[in-house]
């Protein structure tokens, strides 16, 4: 059956559309009458949190979004940053958390599909993808099922579409038991003077629908959960969309081919709220009205109502405004790729959003107000309480070798090979660094020496303990990972995953994290050019750990000099770059305290942004001058885990001969920030001296702490561990958990 447009608008229906009474009153004030059923659906789609950012907008505005290289900041499908030589990198990160929890394979797959579409809508060919995934405790009954489904879904879509997955994160924590996080990042390459935007221009021009047909998938969910529809709900398709990477690949090729012809005036992909959101955005941005004739929309199901068509989230669809004289050429390209092409409306000069269906006008709304007049809240918030530094002096002693073996083989620090071997990491033939290093690196096709580095980072336990410091740290770690390859960090995208913002303590986390992110981005010249906010990640009143994922992009001038984490040779000196007071002192909130002592108390390590910048620039310069042989930043697990990772990546051992205080634990496992490990050939005494002196001249400590060689890792004050044993532990956790 179809849904009539004359369904009475009751309080329950309004509530089931996620609209509060005062929001509904705002609608009445705006249009001066009761909305039709379809109009109510349109308002709920445009005014929900996802499309309107009503809780976060006030704070998002405080983030730095511009810079000398920024061509397009937030507000379009993706951010655009100049990389020189007439080229630009186009990128964004977006969450698909709720759908992935309900239907892991399709939820994750369509998350990847959505972000790829955002990138090629701008005229860029996708060249790299990453995925930041967070799941509940490994022993929670849903975790294994979610990991299997999400990883297969990410791979199933990305592999078929043909983009290399070069990085990402996988983390487990009980706070995600009821809400897994799937944050998908994609980046593409475009000519910087051929970026396509969503702003419609010109009156009376055809609005064209392209791609896959419209079905009932994606209609429903929150907006359809009304008692009056109980009978219908059984007939509805599941609310999670179904992805078709084959169609998306064809859509990519058709769009890029079409863009070359000069036919495209404006383009917008149909993502959340499908036809509604894309049409309103194109019109509102261009100060134009849009008239849609739903009878012309290609559909794959019979008797779809206007409401369903306007709210369908069927995948792999695009809306464009085309030059009329190029219509025929455009249609031929789409037919060649076996895709639908239909003129479904036109631009008008009356600033109205009008929708016609079977001879009836089912919606007639002011287009600017639909977008611009969305509610915006200054939600009450409370600052998260600061924790005092705990006294760890009475901790039971653990042998450092035992601790290291346990950490490298733990749920959160073990190898993610099981995951990334299900992703095509080398398609396109440009992957220079695949997952497992500090950042993924992809060569810029057609350029002799240039490459782009990508990293995705956040340490949610730090953000939970102190949202401001944690927000700073997420940015700093991403920036650090890019520097560790030798890349100049250019810009970032943020994917803010939080609980219910109507709770002041959760809102306080969001506010604190955004302040910290903004502070770090300003200090490091690392603007936020795109992003996404996912709120209400809660189950039974228990929120996830605040998780503001940062996806960063850096530029490498000459990839031949890029650094990797694996030791390059035996007999290299190992240097620790740090600040004089950050040798390794901070154990609170470390992976060591969590995994060895089940302690989650205290503040996270503070981030000194001035030091961070100095250290990053020093390391980057050393790499770019070709003076070092390997580089790795220190993060989860501190110095011991970082050295172990460098050894495992190469199979070469190392001996660390740090002068130890009485308690070696904080030095080996503390997570003080702003630190890197570098290696330099030991035989080159002059170079070694030069690097240490130069670090000192820049106000850094560059400490010679050991040497590579042999097949064992020897930490001070404990037994030697063979690299083989470390590797066996590191590689075994994931397969044992999953297979």
């Amino acid at each position: 059956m179809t849904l009539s447009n004359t369904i009475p608008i009751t309080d329950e229906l309004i509530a089931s559309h996620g609209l509060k009474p005062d929001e509904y009153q705002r609608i009445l004030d705006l249009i001066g009458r009761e909305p039709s059923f379809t109009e109510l659906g349109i308002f709920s789609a445009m005014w929900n949190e996802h499309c309107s950012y009503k809780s976060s907008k006030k704070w998002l505005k405080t983030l730095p979004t511009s810079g000398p290289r920024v061509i397009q900041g937030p507000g379009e499908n993706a951010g655009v940053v100049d990389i020189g030589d007439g080229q630009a990198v186009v990128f964004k990160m977006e969450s698909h958390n709720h759908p992935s929890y309900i239907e892991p394979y399709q939820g994750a797959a369509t998350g990847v599909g959505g972000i790829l579409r955002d990138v090629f809508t701008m005229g860029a060919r996708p060249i790299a993808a990453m995925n930041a995934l967070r799941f509940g405790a490994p022993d929670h009954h849903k975790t294994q099922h979610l990991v299997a489904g999400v990883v297969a879904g990410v791979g199933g879509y990305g592999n078929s579409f043909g983009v290399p997955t070069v990085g990402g994160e996988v983390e487990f924590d009980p706070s995600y038991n009821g809400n897994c996080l799937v944050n998908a990042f994609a980046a593409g390459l475009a000519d910087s003077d051929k970026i396509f935007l969503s702003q419609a221009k010109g009156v009376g021009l055809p609005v064209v629908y392209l791609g896959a047909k419209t079905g009932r998938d994606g209609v429903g969910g929150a907006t359809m959960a009304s008692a009056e529809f109980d009978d219908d709900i059984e007939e509805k398709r599941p609310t999670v969309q179904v992805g078709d990477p084959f169609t998306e690949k064809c859509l990519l090729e058709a769009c890029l081919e079409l863009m070359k012809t000069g036919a495209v005036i404006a383009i917008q992909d149909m993502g959340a709220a499908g036809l509604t959101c894309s049409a309103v955005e194109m019109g509102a941005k261009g100060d134009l009205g849009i008239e849609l004739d739903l009878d012309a929309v290609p559909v794959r199901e019979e008797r779809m109502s206007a409401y369903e068509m306007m709210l369908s989230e069927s995948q792999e669809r695009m809306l464009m405004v085309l030059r009329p004289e190029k219509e025929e050429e455009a249609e031929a390209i789409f037919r060649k790729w076996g895709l639908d092409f239909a003129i479904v409306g036109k631009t008008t000069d009356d600033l109205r959003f009008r929708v016609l269906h079977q001879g009836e006008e089912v919606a007639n709304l002011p287009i600017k107000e639909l977008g611009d007049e969305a509610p915006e809240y200054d939600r009450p918030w409370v600052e998260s309480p600061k924790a005092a530094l705990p006294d760890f002096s009475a901790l039971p002693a653990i042998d450092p070798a035992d601790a290291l073996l346990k950490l490298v083989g733990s749920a959160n620090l073990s190898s993610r090979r099981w995951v990334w071997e299900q992703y095509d990491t080398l398609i396109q033939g440009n992957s220079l660094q695949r997952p497992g290093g500090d950042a993924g690196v992809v060569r810029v096709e057609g350029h002799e020496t240039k490459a782009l580095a990508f990293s995705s980072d956040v340490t949610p336990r730090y953000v939970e303990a102190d949202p401001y410091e944690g927000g700073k740290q997420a940015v700093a770690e991403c920036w650090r990972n890019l520097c560790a390859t030798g890349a100049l960090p250019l810009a970032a995208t943020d994917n803010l995953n939080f609980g219910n913002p109507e709770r002041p303590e959760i809102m306080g986390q969001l506010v604190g994290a955004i302040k910290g992110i903004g502070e770090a981005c300003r200090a490091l010249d690392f603007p936020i050019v795109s992003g996404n906010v996912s709120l209400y990640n809660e189950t039974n009143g228990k929120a996830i750990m605040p998780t503001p994922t940062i996806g960063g992009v850096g530029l490498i001038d000459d990839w031949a000099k890029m650094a990797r984490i694996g030791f390059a040779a035996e007999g290299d000196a190992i240097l620790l770059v740090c600040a004089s007071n950050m040798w390794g002192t901070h154990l609170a909130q470390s992976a060591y305290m969590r995994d060895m002592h089940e302690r989650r108390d205290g503040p996270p390590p503070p981030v000194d942004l001035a030091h961070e910048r100095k250290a990053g620039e020093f390391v980057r310069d050393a790499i770019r001058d070709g003076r070092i042989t390997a580089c790795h930043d220190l993060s989860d697990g501190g110095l011991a885990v970082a050295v172990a990772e460098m050894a495992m990546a190469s199979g070469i051992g190392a001996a660390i001969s740090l002068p130890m205080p009485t308690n070696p634990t904080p030095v080996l496992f503390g997570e003080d920030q702003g630190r890197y490990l570098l290696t330099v050939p030991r035989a080159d005494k002059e170079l070694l001296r030069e690097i240490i002196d130069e670090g000192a001249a820049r106000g850094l400590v560059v400490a010679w702490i050991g040497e590579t060689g042999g097949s064992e890792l020897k930490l001070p004050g404990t037994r030697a561990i063979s690299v083989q044993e470390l590797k066996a532990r590191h590689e075994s956790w994931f397969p044992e958990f999953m297979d």
Partner: protein
Amino acid sequence: MKSAVILLPGLNRDRDMIAALTKIGGTAPLTVWQTDTEIPDVDLIVIPGGFSYGDYLRCGAIAARMPVMRAVAEKAAKGVTVMGVCNGFQILLEAGLLPGALMRNASLKFVCREVKLEIANAETRFTSRYEKGQVIRCPIAHHDGNYFADEATLARIEGEGQVAFRYGEGTNPNGSLNDIAGIVNAEGNVLGMMPHPENLIEDAHGGTDGRALFEAALGRAA
């Protein structure tokens, strides 16, 4: 030495293959679209990897029935060198140009990693620049690479030296019978293989072990 690459919707390693042929052969290959019924005069025809037609129905099944594949079969019958990689291998099997079948990986998962390839027969026009028994590195990336053939067929291709490549040193990633990674037809002019030599031909790839395969196929064609 002229070459052509077959283009079908859903293939996605076409650009990798075109880059490899261009870099090694010195000139860009021609491209032939799914609906073309004729293939220009070339010495080497390559069907690249990907997910033609979304791998719907069965990997390679729809592609094998497209007009362009009739043209490939005609060229193959005339002795033109034909090579299918990954999805291209699956298509050649579905088209009946090579014996056997490729099933879902034994792990039931997509797998992308580097494996070892042993040259099982160095006397084909694809492997002549390797030594028999030589072990090379090569990446793989597939979901359906588990080679299977009935006993009689397996005995025949083994007996006739039609196995060109085997997964070596215990690196069989998919459960293929006899570790088979690539085979040629009885006439020796059609090769199908699951691994991706086109992704290991330059320093940026971390190695050049795949080059000799293209040099042989193109050289022979010259």
